[in-house]
Structure formats: C-alpha cells, structure tokens
C-alpha cells in the first residue's frame, strides 16, 4: 500500500510526462477495444447465423459467395425448387430470395436484409421466434403488400404494427415486428416471396432453396444427390456452411490479433521509454534507497508498480474511450443512431473482453517496467552518490 502511494506520488510529480504516457496507452487501448469488439461481434454474428436452417440442406447457385448458407449474389430459376423436390430423399423444399441493402462500398454492415419467403413458410426462416404483441404474419395476398420487420429496424425508425415503410418505391405495411435479439433477424424485412421478387426485380428468380431431408436421409447424402442431379447448383450441409466461414473468421481473428500485437508492442516501447527517463532522473533516489538498506527487490517492485499503475489507469481510460469508439464505429458502419446501440453496449463490448484487455494492458506495462527496474536496482550506490558532488 505504501509503495503504491509512493509510486502514485512519483507519477504525479511528473504530471505532464505521466499524462502523455497515459494518453498513449489510452489511445492504444481504445483501438484495441474498438477493433476487438467490432471484430468479435462480427465473428459472433457470423457464427450465430449457423443456427438457421439447422438439419436442412441449403441449395444456392454455383459460384455465389455464401455466408452460413446466405448467398450474396447469384440467382436460380424459381422452377429449380420443383427439380429439387424430385430428388429422392427430399421431404420439403422452400424457395427464398435473400437481398442485402447497403449504402456505399465502405459499409460492411447492411442497412437491412430483405428475405422473401413463400407465405405460410415463415417458420423455415424464423423458427419459433415470436412477434411482438399485436403483430400478425402477412396473408400472402400480393395486393396487400405486407411485411414483418426486425426489432432493431422498428426501434430505429419507430415503426410499429400498422406503420408504412418504403422499400424501392414500394410502400409496405408492417404487419408484425419480430421479438428477437438475433443480429440477422433484428435487421430483417420479411416479405412474401412474390412481393420480394417484385420489389427487387427478381422476376421468377430466387437465390436459395431450403431443403428438408426425409427421415433417415443424411444431409450430406442428400446434398450429394442434389448436386449430381441438378446442374449449376451447390447443396450445402450445416457442417459445410460452417466450414466455409471458418477461413473468414480465422482472417478476422488473425487481423485482430495482429493489430493488437502491434499496439501492445508500441505501448511497451512507450512505457519503457518513459520509465527509463524517470529512472535516469531518479538515480539518486534509488541510490539513496539502496544506501539506507532497501533490497533490490523493493526498487524493482517500485518501478514495476509505477508502470503497472500507468497500465491500469491508461487501460481504464482506454476501455471507456474504446466503448465510445465502438459505438461510433457501429453507428458509422450501419447508419444506425448511437442511441440504438447504447442499451447493448455490454453485449457489443463484453465484460470478458474488457477484463481481458485491462489485464493485458497492466501486464504489458509491468513487462515494460522490467528493464528500467533492473537498471534502477543495479545502479552502483557509490558511483551515483559520488557523481552528485
């Protein structure tokens, strides 16, 4: 306790230098939190998407880019679904149209996701997800132009049951709002398939078919059969869908780790440099301590505690800044106001991530203090004291 107090006073004695060092650590930590939280969230959302179409085979056009079974680009003739139904071992096949709406090139998170599903087959997409009270599913009557939307979209624009929304010059009536925390379903606009084809100009086209196997037929066997019998399609099992995103997730995690390593390295250099300057300025203090009988371990502990305190306070400030930065990033990438994200801040920047980053920051600051601490403890008492006269 006394050493900590002494260290705090030593840091406060060099306020300007300490503040600059804290600022450096805080900025590095802010980037680590911001990038870490964003990439972790991306990875979590991508992994979460694997819960869709569990046990089913997803058929998409060959050559289309697929994330957990959801195709980006590519199209199939609507009649493909009839061909699929002809394949032995198929219990049911549901066509879907999956369209991502985004603005501009640098927006990796879509504004919304429209999914066309044949009326009455909603559960193939949403499973048991309920609607908020008062909502109903669209009747499927094309003239009605009805839709069900995700809660994040609804809350952002204050849409409720009965509101009208405009998609591609089509005015749609909100019949229901999903009650879910799923990242994908939160931003979804679910339409009857024909309406979706109309709205997005996919005349008689779809881009995915969800295929339920007969009892006793395995996903992989069915997928093989579909690919053999129908040309120009890929049939993906749940395992394959998951495996396909692993390289993407691996890349995200590698980049995250790489950026974190570089920032931690820069933090080490910063803290070590400042600690070295502090130590060289206080050689007489350390020599005096050694002369009056302080063990080297006390001097080492003192210097390392000082750098550790820089890590603690810089890390805490950085985490706070990082939370703000993460909100700003999320808002920037999605065009969704920050206020929508605030209630979920501890989901986006999880306490586990915060603790991990804070402990890492303290640890690397302590590591950065080792060399200056050894330098302080090794100084020859006689030489230092003699040099003072």
């Amino acid at each position, binding site marked *: 306790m006394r050493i900590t107090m002494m260290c705090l*006073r030593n840091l406060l004695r060099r306020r300007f230098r300490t503040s600059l060092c804290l600022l450096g650590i805080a900025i590095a930590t802010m980037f680590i939190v911001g990038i870490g939280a964003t990439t972790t969230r991306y990875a979590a959302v991508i992994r979460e998407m694997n819960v869709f179409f569990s046990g089913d085979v997803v058929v998409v056009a060959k050559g289309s880019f697929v994330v957990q079974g959801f195709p980006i680009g590519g199209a199939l003739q609507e009649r493909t679904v009839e061909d699929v139904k002809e394949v032995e071992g198929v219990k049911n096949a549901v066509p879907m149209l999956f369209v991502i709406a985004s603005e501009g090139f640098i927006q990796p998170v879509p504004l919304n996701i429209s999914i066309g599903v044949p009326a009455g087959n909603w559960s193939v997409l949403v499973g048991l997800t309920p609607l908020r009270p008062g909502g109903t599913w669209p009747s499927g009557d094309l003239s009605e132009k009805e839709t069900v939307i995700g809660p994040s979209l609804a809350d952002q624009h204050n849409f409720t049951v009965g509101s009208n929304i405009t998609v591609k010059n089509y005015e749609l009536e909100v019949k229901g709002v999903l009650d879910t925390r799923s990242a994908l379903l939160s931003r979804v606009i679910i339409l009857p398939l024909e309406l979706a084809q109309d709205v997005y100009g996919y005349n008689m086209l779809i881009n995915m078919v969800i295929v339920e196997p007969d009892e006793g037929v395995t996903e992989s066997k069915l997928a093989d059969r579909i690919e053999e019998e129908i040309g120009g399609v890929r049939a993906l099992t749940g395992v394959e869908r998951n495996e396909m995103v692993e390289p993407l997730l691996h890349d995200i995690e590698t980049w995250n780790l790489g950026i974190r390593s570089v920032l931690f390295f820069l933090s080490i250099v910063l803290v070590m440099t400042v600690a070295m300057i502090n130590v060289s300025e206080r050689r007489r203090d350390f020599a005096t301590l050694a002369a009056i009988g302080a063990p080297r371990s006390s001097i080492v502990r003192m210097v390392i505690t000082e750098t550790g305190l820089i890590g603690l306070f810089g890390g805490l400030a950085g985490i706070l800044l990082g939370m703000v930065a993460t909100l700003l990033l999320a808002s920037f990438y999605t065009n969704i106001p920050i206020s929508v994200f605030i209630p979920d801040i501890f989901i986006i920047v999880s306490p586990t991530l915060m603790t991990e980053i804070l402990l890492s920051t303290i640890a690397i600051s302590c590591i950065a203090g080792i060399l200056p601490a050894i330098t302080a403890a090794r100084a020859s008492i006689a030489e230092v004291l003699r040099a003072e006269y």
Partner: protein
Amino acid sequence: MIVKTVGLTRTYRLGASIITAVSEVNLEIKEATFVSILGPSGAGKTTLLNLIGLNDYPTAGKVIFKGEDTSLLTDNKRRKIRLRDIGFIFQTFNLLPTLTALENVELPMALAKISLKEQRERATQLLESVGLKDRIQHRPKELSTGEMQRVAIARALANSPSLILADEPTGELDSETGSEIIKLLFNLCRKQKTTVIVATHDKKVAKIADITYEIRDGSLHKLTR
C-alpha cells in the same frame, strides 16, 4: 572496535589512467567515538565513507565491521548491516522528494519491517528531537536546507544504528546552521553512545572531535592536537 580497515584501497579507471581515491588506509574506530576526517574536495573522503559504509567495494584491503570481515559477506548481508547498523547523512540530504519529513524518517523502519504504529511513534519522536515537531507533514521542498539536514539526521537514526556516517553534513548550510548540526551529531554521540564519523573540510569540526584524521590524495593520517 566498531570499524577497522586493513590496507583499504580503492582505485578507479578513468580512461587510460588509474586514479587512486583511497590508498592503504588502516583505521581503527572504537564505539561511541566522534571522529572527523578532514580533507579538501577530491581528497577521497566520500570514497572512504562509502567503503566504510559498505556502499562500495575496495580494490584491495578490507573493512571489518563489529569484528566481521565484510569482504566475506553477501550483498544481502551487507545491505542488512547498512539498514540496521549504519546511518547515512549526505551533503545534499538525499531525502526522497515525494515523501513527507515523517515518511522519510519512517522509510528505514519500514524497510526493517517495523510495525507501522512503532514507525510513526519513533519517527515523530526523532523529528521532535531534532526540532522539527511542526514540520513533520512537510515535503523536502517545503523545508529549509537546515531543516532538510535535520530530517536526514532523524532518518539516519531511525533504526538506532551503532555507526553514523556523515559526508560533508554542513556543506550546504550556512555556518550557524552548520554549527547546530555538528552540535546535534556530537550530542548524539555522547548521549546515545553512537559512533559518528564526519567527513568534512571544516576545521571547526575537528576541534570538537575525539579523533581527527586528515586525508590527502587518498592517504589517511591521524592528526594530534
């Protein structure tokens, strides 16, 4: 005999040349003696005190402290002797700037793992004894040079050492304050039976010392009155 040196020599390498700071010093100092070592600047006073105070290692010869050959001791044992048996008073006080007067005096006791309550009581009492009752919560920069030296004396006495080494204790003080400090050290020697070795270039100190040595070019000679 509290300190005995045998053929104590300390040389330094300065570029290509070797400088002898202390040469073949043979010294015997008994308990409760007030010793002054006179010499001009650069004569080797500080080096000699550093060797006696186990802050430095001799190039040749040895220091025998309370009958124990310190050249045979580990670093840790030498440190423990410095902590419990030797008090240092430096010309430039060397108080830790971030600590109050009280905390500076408590520091050696904290290092000796004395209880906090005892530290506080003894440090307060020591500061009172050097006339700084009202200044215990002040930091060094808030004290005059004389007051700083008094704090340094109180710190040197913290663990009740048997030997006090004072290196030019009056060097930074005006003559009146300097005389007070020397008086304080002399009384300490007499009342608490502490051995005090003062390195100084001030000949007035020699007048009250029990034994006076003169050091010139690293060689020590006893002066007779």
